[in-house]
Each structure stands twice: as structure tokens, then as C-alpha cells.
């Protein structure tokens, strides 16, 4: 196998601690804003505050699986193992956040809707998304040949991303229990107070930093593993 341009991991370990500090600090700021600074909701009361966890987790799930898609295209295009490392790292993190997203949603649903779970379009499509990426991770264990494994996974990673917009748009396409989008509304300003919107934006930023931190850690781990297993 030809020695491809895998970064030897010189830059990632240097920025990782700073990314970690930034992620932790912004998470604390976001949590304080969400719990104490943002006003309570006129209809739902304080229970709505889980929005500041639920929505960023959903965003991270989407982001992670779009990164899997892009990295999968990158692998098929260039055959650079770096892309495969990014894909598997993002898929694992995406599965973690989709799981937390489902749990947070369930915790929000019980006191507001009155049920933990119902077979509503967005819940069904999200459950499918979760199971598909668990399947993606299982598929990666099938072959011990690096190149074949990466190619199969990449094909799956490209197909599976179709569910991401389906999850997001399901509330517009079908009768659903979920409310319509709050921030990205068709032809209108966001339907929430400006202090709530700011809190949500800070939370989104904080969770994105957490994702970036997890990614740097997981990708360097995968690159180290790759060097150990396949390049000698």
C-alpha cells in the first residue's frame, strides 16, 4: 500500500486542550443562561428549558451525519485514510448524540405531550436514523481488509444521510405531533423571545465545540490505530 498523506498528528494534539477548555467554558455559560437567565415560557413553564439541550443535540446529530457523508465522499474520491478516520469518528459521536437526543426528547415529551414515546413521523424517522448509524458501525466490523471496509462504509454513509433532511422536514410533510420549526420558519422571524434565541445560539455554539473536541480526540485515536494496523 502506498504511503498516503496521513497527518502524523502534530497539529491535533496541540489544539485539543484549548478546544476542550473552550467547549467546557461555553457549556457552563450556556447552561447558566438556559437555567437562570432565559425567561420561563408562557405556556410550558420551566419544562421548556430542556429545549436548550434537545435542539443542540439534534443539531449535532445532523452535523455528525453530514460530516460522515462528506468524509465518505472524500474517501471514495481520494482513497486517503484520513477521510475514513473522520467518517468513523463522526458516526460514533453522531450515534452518541442521537441517543441522547432521543432521551432528552422523551424527557420533554412526558410532561408536555403526556407520553414518553409515540409513533409520530419525526420520532420514527429519528429512530431509523439511530438504528441506521448503529448499522453503519456494525458494517465497519465486517471486513478486515482496510480498503474494502472503508469503501463499503463510505457507500452506506452516503446513502444513510438521506434520512437527515427527512427527519428535519417530517414535521412539514405529514400530520405530526411535533410543532413546526421555531427558528428556521418559512417567511418569518424566529418565534421565540430574543433572549431565548440568544441562549439557544450560545448552546448551539457550545455543543458544536464539544463535537469538535470529541472529533479531534477520536480522529487522532483512529489515525494512531491505522498506523499500527495497516502501515508497516
Amino acid at each position: 500500500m502506498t504511503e498516503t498523506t496521513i497527518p502524523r498528528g502534530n497539529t491535533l494534539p496541540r489544539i485539543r486542550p484549548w478546544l476542550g477548555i473552550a467547549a467546557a467554558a461555553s457549556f457552563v455559560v450556556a447552561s447558566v443562561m438556559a437555567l437562570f437567565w432565559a425567561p420561563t415560557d408562557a405556556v410550558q413553564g420551566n419544562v421548556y428549558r430542556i429545549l436548550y439541550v434537545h435542539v443542540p443535540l439534534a443539531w449535532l446529530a445532523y452535523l455528525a451525519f453530514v460530516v460522515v457523508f462528506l468524509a465518505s465522499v472524500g474517501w471514495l474520491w481520494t482513497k486517503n485514510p484520513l477521510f475514513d478516520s473522520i467518517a468513523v469518528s463522526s458516526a460514533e459521536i453522531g450515534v452518541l448524540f442521537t441517543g441522547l437526543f432521543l432521551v432528552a426528547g422523551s424527557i420533554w415529551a412526558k410532561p408536555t405531550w403526556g407520553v414518553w414515546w409515540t409513533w409520530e413521523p419525526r420520532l420514527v424517522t429519528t429512530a431509523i436514523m439511530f438504528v441506521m448509524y448503529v448499522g453503519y458501525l456494525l458494517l465497519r466490523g465486517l471486513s478486515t481488509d482496510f480498503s474494502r471496509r472503508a469503501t463499503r462504509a463510505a457507500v452506506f454513509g452516503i446513502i444513510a444521510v438521506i434520512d437527515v433532511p427527512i427527519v428535519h422536514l417530517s414535521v412539514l410533510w405529514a400530520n405530526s405531533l411535533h410543532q413546526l420549526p421555531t427558528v428556521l420558519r418559512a417567511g418569518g422571524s424566529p418565534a421565540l423571545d430574543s433572549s431565548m434565541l440568544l441562549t439557544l445560539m450560545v448552546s448551539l455554539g457550545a455543543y458544536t465545540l464539544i463535537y469538535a473536541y470529541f472529533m479531534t480526540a477520536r480522529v487522532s485515536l483512529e489515525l494512531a490505530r491505522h498506523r499500527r494496523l495497516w502501515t508497516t
Partner: protein
Amino acid sequence: MLERIGARRVLLIAALAVAVLVGTIAATNLASSTVYYMTPSEVYAKTVQMGQTIRLGGLVEQGSLTSRPTGRPGENEVEFIITDGNAKVRVLARGAIPGLLREGAGAVVEGSFAADATFIATQVIAKHDEVYTAPTAGATPAHRTGFP
């Protein structure tokens, strides 16, 4: 070598199992959840059988909601009218009723029609909209939680 093949076979079976699970969920639930609920107009148009379990969704009509405790803790007997602006259905339910169920807001009920065209709901799900706003001064939120 044998161990390797065994592990791969296990993974292949697991991957197939996940694929089957996805397929089953998609086939059995996605089809029915694209019509997650029917509106009152659809119920009248599609001739729903008496006793057939369906989900019905719409708005709780203003002035139609009455609630009384059943005597069991946390349980209420409620009666309200679900409307989509054109047709109306009278709904009866008893049990744990979500705190967000209120007049003018959305609700989805699961159950079936009785002989007198009343909908007997076995489950009441409250729907909330996408608007979040701070309560006006002095007002208490409709749904109160224990957080200070």
C-alpha cells in the same frame, strides 16, 4: 483464523438483524405514521368503523373542555370537542390527562368511536406550538413545574 470467521459471521448476522429491524419499523410504522392522526373531516369522509382504533387530531374547541377528578390520584375525567374548523367530534377520556391540554390548543387522541358517535379516548396527547415567549407580567405559565 476460525475465530476471525466466527466474529465476522456474528457481525454479519448483527448487521442483517439491524437491517431487518429498520425494514420492519419502516414497513409497519412509517406507513401508519405518515397518517399519524386523522382530522375530524377525514374521519367523516373515510367512514371509520365503530370500535376501530384510530388517532384523531385537531384543536380543542373554545369553551368545550370540562374536567372532573375521578377520585383516583392524578386521574381526571375530561370531555371536550376536537375541531378542524369544519367538523367536530366529542371526546371523552379518563386517566392521566397532560397538563398542557387546554382550549384553543392542539390535541391528539387515540381510541375509538362508541355507538353514539362519541370518541372514547384511551390516550390523550397534548400538542404545543412552535412559539416560545416569556409570560406577561403577573401571569403564571399554563404548565407549572417545580423548578424555582
